[in-house]
Structure formats: structure tokens, C-alpha cells
């Protein structure tokens, strides 16, 4: 006989295993939004030049890390005063905020004329790496105090390859160890180390529910790492423009990191 479904028809069953799957709709939404913005830039500013292009790109470049930073602060607040989660997420939120600050400084410098290289904005951008490194190291050291030799080799070899390839290509182009060479190398080194740490973190937690946010975090950091390296190459070959798709990698990276932080809050 037909009857309304009542709450007691579906008694709460304790799940045998905790699960928190990745919501691919959210990831699609992030990628879709970023791709739409990129298409808009191509259509509205085909020559990478326009009255408001600089401002529009700067606003989006500031908003995306700010969103990720707010998400990190929110997680920090949840674990406030705790030695591992509290401190490490606070460091991550400050690090991401440094990127937003870098964008603002860069925009201000640009309005005043040519931006020197390196500039104060670079200090803010580079400040992200020690903060992110602290976040990763704090968690890895606590949860995996002993790391086996294979993992150690991976942690050393992956960044070494990224830095090595970058250094060879850039050195050949710049024809010597210029300031630009060292600056690019600093970005490549920072991003490669962070990427390697994020992958190690995701591997530690992979069999637990916390593995999901760490995997998403690693994906987000991979996107920003690719962005950092690509930007440096574009800088060497003088190919960077405001409508370059490299910006989309950073936007997507920060939004994916924000989702990872939301997921962290949701699972534990």
C-alpha cells in the first residue's frame, strides 16, 4: 500500500568505513568558471591590451588566493591553539595571503611605471613557500616521523628533476647566471619542494578519510606549480601577456586548494 516515506523507514546505519568522496561537480564548476573567464579574456581582449584588462586580471588574481586564504583561516579557527593542525593551517593561510598581497603590490608598482625585477612583490610571492613548507613539514613530521628510503629518494628526486630541467633550459636562454635566472630558479625550487611535500602528505593519509582533502590539496598545488614554472619560462622567452592561460592555472589552483580546505573541515 502506498504511504509516505517516514524518517524511521531509513534507520541510521553506522557505516562500516568512513567515506567522503570527491565532489566532481565542484571541481567541474571550478574548472568551468576558470575556463569561461579565460575565454572571456580571449574574446574581450584579443590583443592582450585594453583599458581595464590589467585591473580585471589583478582583481581575479587577488580574489582567488583570498578565497583560499579565507578557507585556510576557517580551518585554522576550527583547530585554534592546537600544535599541529592549528599552527600548520595558520601558516598555510598566511602563505596564501602573501600571494594575494604580492598581486596587490605588483599592481601598485605597475601603475607607477615599469616593475623592476626582482621587486617587493616577488618577496611577497616567494614568502608563500616557507609558510607552505612549514604547513607540510609540521603535518608530515607529526604523522610520519620515520620515512623510508624510497620515499626519501622520491622527495629528493622529484624537485631535483623539476629544478634541474628548469635551470638547464633557463640558463641556455639567459646565457648566464643573471638576476632573472636566480629569481626564476627560486620560484621553481619553492614550487617543486612544495609539490613534492604535498604528494608525500597525500600518500601518508591516502588510506584514511583525510587522504581526500590532502589529495585535492596536492592537485591544487600541482596546478600552481605548473603555473609558476610556465610563468618563469614565459618570462625568459618574453611571451607572457595578461591573457596568458598560465593565470588560469593559478586561479584554478587556488580554488581547488580552497575546496581541499573545505573538505578538510568537512571530514574531521
Amino acid at each position, binding site marked *: 500500500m502506498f504511504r509516505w516515506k517516514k524518517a524511521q523507514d531509513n534507520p541510521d546505519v553506522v557505516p562500516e568505513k568512513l567515506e567522503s568522496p570527491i565532489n566532481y561537480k565542484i571541481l567541474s564548476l571550478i574548472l568551468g568558471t576558470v575556463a569561461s573567464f579565460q575565454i572571456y579574456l580571449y574574446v574581450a581582449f584579443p590583443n592582450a591590451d585594453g583599458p581595464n584588462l590589467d585591473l580585471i586580471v589583478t582583481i581575479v588574481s587577488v580574489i582567488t588566493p583570498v578565497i583560499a586564504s579565507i578557507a585556510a583561516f576557517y580551518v585554522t579557527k576550527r583547530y585554534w591553539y592546537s600544535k599541529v*593542525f592549528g599552527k600548520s593551517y595558520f601558516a598555510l593561510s598566511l602563505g596564501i595571503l602573501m600571494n594575494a598581497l604580492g598581486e596587490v603590490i605588483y599592481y601598485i608598482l605597475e601603475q607607477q611605471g615599469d616593475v623592476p625585477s626582482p621587486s617587493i612583490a616577488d618577496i611577497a610571492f616567494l614568502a608563500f613557500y616557507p609558510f607552505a613548507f612549514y604547513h607540510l613539514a609540521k603535518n608530515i613530521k607529526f604523522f610520519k616521523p620515520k620515512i623510508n628510503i624510497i620515499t626519501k629518494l622520491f622527495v629528493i628526486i622529484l624537485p631535483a628533476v623539476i629544478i634541474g630541467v628548469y635551470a638547464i633550459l633557463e640558463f641556455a636562454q639567459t646565457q648566464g647566471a643573471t638576476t632573472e635566472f636566480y629569481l626564476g630558479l627560486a620560484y621553481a625550487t619553492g614550487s617543486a619542494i612544495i609539490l613534492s611535500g604535498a604528494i608525500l602528505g597525500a600518500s601518508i593519509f591516502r588510506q584514511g578519510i583525510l587522504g581526500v582533502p590532502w589529495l585535492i590539496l596536492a592537485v591544487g598545488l600541482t596546478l600552481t606549480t605548473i603555473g609558476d614554472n610556465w610563468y618563469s619560462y614565459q618570462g625568459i622567452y618574453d611571451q607572457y601577456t595578461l591573457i596568458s592561460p598560465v593565470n588560469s592555472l593559478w586561479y584554478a589552483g587556488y580554488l581547488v586548494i580552497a575546496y581541499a580546505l573545505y573538505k578538510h573541515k568537512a571530514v574531521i
Partner: protein
Amino acid sequence: MILTPRDNTLIMSGLDTLIAKSLDSTIKANLGKKTLEKVEQRLFEKYGISLTQAIGDFTKLDSVLREFFGEGAIGLERQFLENVVTLEAAELQNPNWVAIEDSSLAKLILESFGDEDKKNILNVVLDEPRIISEILEVAQIPQTSGYRKINSLIDNGLLIVQGHEITHDGKRVNKYKSIFENLTINIEKNKVIVKVLLAKESIEKSSIIQVVQCR
């Protein structure tokens, strides 16, 4: 069946009882109150036990921690142990010597040895396990205060059950032994360092040490 804390204490090894005191503080101090609540909630919904009770069957707590942290549970479990004791094998040439890291635990041990009756009780069962009436008789302690002090030592994990004796009326009576076989107290730069030689049985019966050392 859900164990009461008292029942559970009897089943747990003495060392586990000591470590149990650091469980919630370790999670709360490092990972926050919310994480502690999540772990407790999952432990209760899956096994119907509290965090303190879980240390009696550490594999259950291990399985819940692994659900949350995967392989990272190893680090957290080591932290439970290291917050209470550190192994002093290299220094003292005996793997069972441990230094007490937890100040409240060191205080508890010192207070127990500062109490004349408790010190006598611990001395009496230092080498061989005895039933309570025998302990009171050898230590020459009055029954009323003696039972209270023995119960206090059991609750604090300093006395552990080791074997039993059948009385003339057929009753099974537990025999108790001190959790440690030797103890040293050093004062270095205003810091009191308590080192204890754990009884072999304490190590063998400790489910957390068995789980952590297997890795």
C-alpha cells in the same frame, strides 16, 4: 557489553592505564578539540566504547585512527606513547627502562613513593605477585586504609594483575605485582627525572606497545 572504566582498568595492562591518561590530551593538544570529538564519536558509534576504554583493546582505536589518518595513525600512536614515556635502552642497557615524560604521571609516582604505606605495598610486590591479604600482612598495614591504598594504586595503573590464587573456599583471587621492578629519581637543573624499569609483563600486556612496536 560496554565496560565501565573500573572494569576496563582491571583488564588493561598497568602501562596502558598510564598511557590512557595521555590519549585525549595528545589528540586535543595537537589536532584540536573538534578532532578529538570526531574520533570519540566514531569510536562510540562503531564499537560502543570510549577513548579511554579503547586503549584496553588498542586495535579498535588503531582501526578508527586509520580510518581518519591512514598511515598517519602511526605517528599519532607513537605520540601517545612518547608523551608518557621515552625508551632509555641505550643509556641503561635494558630495553625496559623508560623515562617518565608526563609530569602528572611523574608526580603520581613520586607521591606514591612519598606515602609510607603505598611505598611498602609497592616494595612487597616488586619481585613477586601477591594477593591483597598477603600484601597487607607482609607490609603490616591495617586492612581499612590498606584496601583503599591498594585500590588507588590499581586505579592509577601502578599495580597490575598477574595470575590468581584459589582460596580454600574455592574463590579465585587476583594476585598483584608492581608495574615496575626498579625506579630511579634524579634531579637535574630543577627538573625531577623519574626513570622506571618496567616489569616484563607490563610490556607484554600493553596492547599499545604491541601495536606500535609491530610497525
